[in-house]
């Protein structure tokens, strides 16, 4: 299968790879997918509680090139956004940006889920 240039770029130079301290109250962690399905994404955000702005984001992904690119792109996009803005990111935006073929749409869905899961986790810590 031919990958788009943007997918190849994210695969070769993934942005924001790494981990934030999970127990830190300013950090929200989303872990989605399953090893049996061939895709697991961990996306973490560091949020300013006053402004609700995402100040940092990190990811690690087990999955195909499109899954890696989708999560790499997701971290790029959420940085600097408020939680409300980040929640508005749709998987279709990711599909469009990375020119994902139909068989890889699930990768973008997983990336959207990872953003939502990270935000949910952060909110749980701040209820």
């Amino acid at each position, binding site marked *: 299968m031919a990958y788009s240039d943007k997918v190849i770029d994210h695969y070769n130079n993934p942005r924001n790879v790494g981990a934030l301290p999970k127990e830190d109250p300013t950090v929200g962690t989303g872990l989605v997918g399953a090893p*049996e*399905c061939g895709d697991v994404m961990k996306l973490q955000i560091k949020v300013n509680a006053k402004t609700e702005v995402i100040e940092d984001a990190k990811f690690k992904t*087990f999955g*195909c090139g499109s*899954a890696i690119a989708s999560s790499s792109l997701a971290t790029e996009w959420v940085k600097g956004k408020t939680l409300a803005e980040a929640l508005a990111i749709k998987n279709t935006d990711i599909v469009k940006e990375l020119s994902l073929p139909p068989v890889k749409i699930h990768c973008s869905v997983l990336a959207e889920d990872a953003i939502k899961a990270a935000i949910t986790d952060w909110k749980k810590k701040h209820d």
Partner: protein
Amino acid sequence: MNLPIYMDNHATTPLDPRVLDAMLPFFTEKFGNAASRNHKFGWEAEEAVEEARKNVAALIGADPREIVITSGATESDNLAVKGVASMYREKGDHIITCVTEHKAILDSCKHLEKDRYRVTFLPVDNQGFVDMDDLRKAITDKTILITIMTANNEVGVIQDIKEIGKIARARGVLFHTDAVQAAGKVPFNVNEMNVDIASLSAHKMYGPKGVGALYVRRRNPRVLLSPIIDGGGHERGMRSGTLNVPGIVGFGKAAEIARKELDQESAEMFRLREKLRATLERELDEVYINGDLEKRLPGNLNMSFAYVEGESLLMGIHDVAVSSGSACTSASLEPSYVLKALGVGEDLAHTSIRFGIGRFNSEEEVDYVANRVIETVRRLRDLSPLYEMAKEGIDLKSVHWAAEAK
């Protein structure tokens, strides 16, 4: 060394230049129809086909009259399974096969199930072997065919064909084996191994695509097959259709080379395979070999690289042509059914790569591939949440995985 490197020799093999040389005249001046009995063009085509048939037969210890030329192994498998089923319908309606067979066998058997035949799909153990007691117990007085492949196309595991043939013969059941991956790579002799019917393919042994053969035993026992392609009665009525003369000539040359060079070549494949395996095992932790390592095709290595998804690994080694056991292309995300049958967990099946070393791979290429795999696996593990969790001591099996975020 030229890039990309081809190391997927179970999928197909490059044509040996000696094979091409043998074929070329039959595309041009020697274009006759081997069935034309009235002129020189026909005679020379027929002579060339018979010479090729001898070489194919010699590779497997058969008589040339036992070789039925087909369009390839898929047709051979179909003809063996459906041809026996139809011919021996009055004797019985039961066929025994195994879950790791090629789709050409499995789907032919499933087709027969719709025609009210009964099929037993034997399991394999975690090394890939059929259990001989399972086989014995599965045979009934209605069993007409046992079909078990010699060497598996994914994991390279070689079944105990001689023993299976012995069991079949003792019960008066015909035995077919798909020998596509084995013939020309390891010793394979239909008489020593008690084989009644065998499928072969030219393009897996450095011959051309579009030509294969079915070995059909003529005596002790004499095997009869109903044709699945009717027409002019070529190939003793078992397979009609004008013969693909250049293809058959190429097949014959490929079989001749394979027979003459088998010992030396298989030793070299084994040496290169073992170097690849030893290097990967030395440099990387948590790599697992799928299938038995002893009874295995010398050029095959099927390995799981835990915590690294297969397709992303292939993307990282894009200048190397190998195959992945992961098929991350659909919503179902089904990994290889062969690895599943061996009990390889789906998590590890998604991380598997099949290396198929062949005649034209050099040691330099093997070293290059090993290095590319090592550096890519390391890079992707740095990126893998699963590797990170495993290193933290988290048992991944105990994690409750959310398929979707709620």
